[in-house]
């Protein structure tokens, strides 16, 4: 037997609504607790019950946690998808299934290994309750996997005990179902199989968390007090996380009153309107949505741009349109978000790659919005937002102070002769603002779109309009110096690869694969828009730059060409948009294809 440790892809094929999510989640967590890096990916339908759903876990001690093509172990619990599930297995892979009913002969594959277990039959004799019989199928296979993959059993039982703490009557039957599966696997199956788990400390102090939870916490730490949102997958869990943690951490101990307000609005127009109203009135406010919501928010986003209101928006991107593949991941809102609205508008974007960055950028976005007095959109996606992955622990520096930007209080107003809301006093394009109710006689102004002069007086004078638009351009240039800098690893290669967001997850693995094929690339991970000077310098320094997009049209490439007035020929578009997250194999293949098609030199490293 050719045993490998802590390096495989396991996929669970289930029926939506069958209770598999919690068992599968426990599986990933058990491995994480054994110190093994994991990334979970929930591939689910837009459906509440009945349609097929998959849960894939990439297990990799080296920390390659992007998606990898091919499945090593398939837990096939949905007869309806047997055919595609069996086809997804790599040669030599394991097919685990419930053989209470035999597998149709037509589906047999000679190059895979079948592990049959009569789960339904086992449950029939052990449990009388119909609901338990169905629910515990998931627990039984979890028990069996503990034997097959060599997962420490007490890690799993410990999790069950913790999950049902206080509900002792649930712990016993769950443990019994776990043991049922484990016993059977030890007694009658060839346990363990070639893919095994082994305790290690590769996770260090890292945590297992999804991006939306981290972003919700980031908004809480960043001082958001108003959250307005309208339910839409995959953003919902961010607003819910904010509310859940705020209910625990932002309640006055004595009065039990809340130091925050969450409004589930009637639609996204209202959600962003509430955010803008709250921010205009000096509260830190945010909304979480996805592409269809950004479309609805567009008019308001333009207003906020021109009226210079800080507003924070999380776009947890998914495939379009509204009734398309709402539960599949993509990075397809870039252009829509960057230029949302009518008139000459541009918006600051942040691109987090990890849950830790979701946390950091949430707080950062609130600072940036206040500093720049403009909307800031955090561009996450379904893969990052909804799936658990190993992340650096969240960190907060207690010495850090919120940057509330240029806001004049009553004393400051007393100190100036004449307040001009839209005067560019500091030359950075950012005026000083005042909050409603600050001063009895100074500083009040009327907020409207653009028909105003530097003192916020109504005017439709062409020169005044143009001056204002030019100042907004200066502000945009200031923004380029304030957004998070791109992360660059440069070894003086001729070619580079530029990526952002979740394309970071498979990148190291892809670059390592390419290196084996004699292709070595410098890399740059873009983290903000407008692009900082370092982005253009990187492109300038390289003869050719691959631009990785998880959308069909190469939207990042378009942004780069458009904003930097760059030569498009230099930017090779590398795209994946089928609704799963981009894999290392995909990046590897596309780069290599380009090298081969262009007959570019590939130099293999000699020796080690």
């Amino acid at each position: 037997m050719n045993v490998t440790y802590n390096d495989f892809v396991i996929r669970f094929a289930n029926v939506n609504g069958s209770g598999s999510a919690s068992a599968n989640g426990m599986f990933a967590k058990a491995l994480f607790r054994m110190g093994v890096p994991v990334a979970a990916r929930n591939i689910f339908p837009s459906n509440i019950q009945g349609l097929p759903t998959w849960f894939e876990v990439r297990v990799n001690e080296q920390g390659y946690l992007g998606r990898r093509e091919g499945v090593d172990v398939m837990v096939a619990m949905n007869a309806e998808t047997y055919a595609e599930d069996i086809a997804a297995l790599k040669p030599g892979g394991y097919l685990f299934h419930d053989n209470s009913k035999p597998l149709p002969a037509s589906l047999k594959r000679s190059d895979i290994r079948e592990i049959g277990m009569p789960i339904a039959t086992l449950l029939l004799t052990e449990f009388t309750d119909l609901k338990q019989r169905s629910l515990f199928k998931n627990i039984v296979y979890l028990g069996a996997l503990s034997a097959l993959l060599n997962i420490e059993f007490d890690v799993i039982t410990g999790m069950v005990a913790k999950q049902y703490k206080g509900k002792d009557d649930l712990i016993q039957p769950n443990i019994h179902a776990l043991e049922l599966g484990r016993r059977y696997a030890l007694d009658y199956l060839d346990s363990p199989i070639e893919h095994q788990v082994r305790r290690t400390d590769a996770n260090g102090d890292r945590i297992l968390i999804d991006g939306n939870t981290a972003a919700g916490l980031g908004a809480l730490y960043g001082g958001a007090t108003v959250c307005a949102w309208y339910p839409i997958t995959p953003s919902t869990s961010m607003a819910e996380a904010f509310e859940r943690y705020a209910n625990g951490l932002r309640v006055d101990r004595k009065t039990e009153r809340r130091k925050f307000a969450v409004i589930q609005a009637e639609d996204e127009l209202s959600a962003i309107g509430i955010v803008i109203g709250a921010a205009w009135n000096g509260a830190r406010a945010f909304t979480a949505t996805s592409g269809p919501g950004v479309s609805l928010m567009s008019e308001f986003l333009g207003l906020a741009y021109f009226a210079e209101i800080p507003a924070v928006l999380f776009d947890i991107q998914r495939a379009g349109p509204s009734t398309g593949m709402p539960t599949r991941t993509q990075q397809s809102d870039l252009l829509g978000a960057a230029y949302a609205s009518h008139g000459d508008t541009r918006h600051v974007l942040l691109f987090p790659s990890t849950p830790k960055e979701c946390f950091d950028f949430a707080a950062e976005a609130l600072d940036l919005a206040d500093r720049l007095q403009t909307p800031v959109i955090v561009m996450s996606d379904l893969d990052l937002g909804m799936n658990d992955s190993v992340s650096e622990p969240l960190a907060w520096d207690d010495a850090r102070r919120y940057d509330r930007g240029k806001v004049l209080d009553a004393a400051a107003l007393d100190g100036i002769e004449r307040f001009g809301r839209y005067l560019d006093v500091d030359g950075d394009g950012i005026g000083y603002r005042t909050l409603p109710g600050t001063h009895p006689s100074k500083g009040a102004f009327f907020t409207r779109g653009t028909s105003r002069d530097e003192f916020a007086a109504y005017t439709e004078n062409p020169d005044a309009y143009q001056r204002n638009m030019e100042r907004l351009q200066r502000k945009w240039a200031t923004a380029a110096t304030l957004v998070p800098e791109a992360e660059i690893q440069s070894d003086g290669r001729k070619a580079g690869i530029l990526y952002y967001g979740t394309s970071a997850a498979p990148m190291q693995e892809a670059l390592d694969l390419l290196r084996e094929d004699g292709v070595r690339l410098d890399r740059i991970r873009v983290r903000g828009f407008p692009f900082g000077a370092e982005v253009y310098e990187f492109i300038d320094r390289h003869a050719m730059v691959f631009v990785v997009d998880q959308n069909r049209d190469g939207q990042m490439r378009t942004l780069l060409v458009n904003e930097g007035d760059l030569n498009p020929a230099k930017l090779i578009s590398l795209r994946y948009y089928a609704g799963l997250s981009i894999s290392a194999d995909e990046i590897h293949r596309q780069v290599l294809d380009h090298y081969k098609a262009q007959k570019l030199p590939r130099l293999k490293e000699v020796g080690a």
Partner: protein
Amino acid sequence: MTFVAKPRTRHPLLPLNELDLTRRDYEGAVSTLCAGCGHDSVSAAIVQACAELSLPPHRFAKLSGIGCSSKTPSYFLDKSHGFNSVHGRMPSVATGANLANRALYCIGVSGDGDSASIGLGQFAHIVRRRINMLYIVDNNGTYGLTKGQFSATNDRGSTSKRGVPNLYEPIDLASMALQIGASFVGRSFSGDKRQLVPLIKAGLMHPGMAFLDVISPCVAFNNHNGSTKSFQYVREHSAKLMEADYIAPSAEITADYEAGAAEDVNMPDGSTLRLRKVEASYDVHDRIGALAHVQRCQEQGEVLTGLLYVDPDAADCHDVLGTVETPLNALAEADLCPGSRELDRLNESFR
């Protein structure tokens, strides 16, 4: 063009209120609306009401959507901040503004196009949310700013300036507000200051959502004979329910009411809302009765004006959400950020 600020010399004859301010201190920029536009009368009534209540003129948040009506917040209370937002979405902006700072008086001014067409959804939902504000619709039955198209409050059969009849049923915002749970609903007429000013005062003092439908004729597009929102039509067809005099706790502002037909409504801030009933049988606390009465009048071609309904013990959105008394925008960082030690605990929960 830019308007020159009016000189703020205090007129010796203007009466001072409790803050030693005159009505001039509550005014705004010079209006750019058509001469005679009903909306200007509503702005003037707001100025009078706020001055008479001796409210600090800088402690308001003025919100509006888009339309001639929505321009008006710059024509009153210029010591306060105002926000001319997008068409039909004032309610959401007002919601946010009120959530951020519950200590400010919140006035939203909208039009019938703004609130009954493009913004009907937002109108309904802010009423449901019980935002503590005064929500005024300057209702002229037309889209003034886009030059005279019918609005959704226009009565069926009413004709446009060009003589074309309106084919569709009207939406009555006051009835809707009653139905969805507004805790204060009134209707008035821009030309009837004696009724309008007390209603505005009462609405401002009301501790929840106060909605006022103010019929406010458009002299440019909807003040001709075939219109049911013209000055003449409303004067001839209005059925006055009652007049409301708002009496502040200290001194009575208006003493101009007939004895014997008054009813005092106690306001939560200790002040009194005095209602003068035209019909002795009308009960301002009866939501269902109010709805029926409004509709009966409508059936008879009459516009019922006055205070239609009030729940003096209303809860507002902050009560519902259980937020702290301190305005959310005034909370200190220590109140907002749980700190690194808490984060260590949170990290542990993700291991």
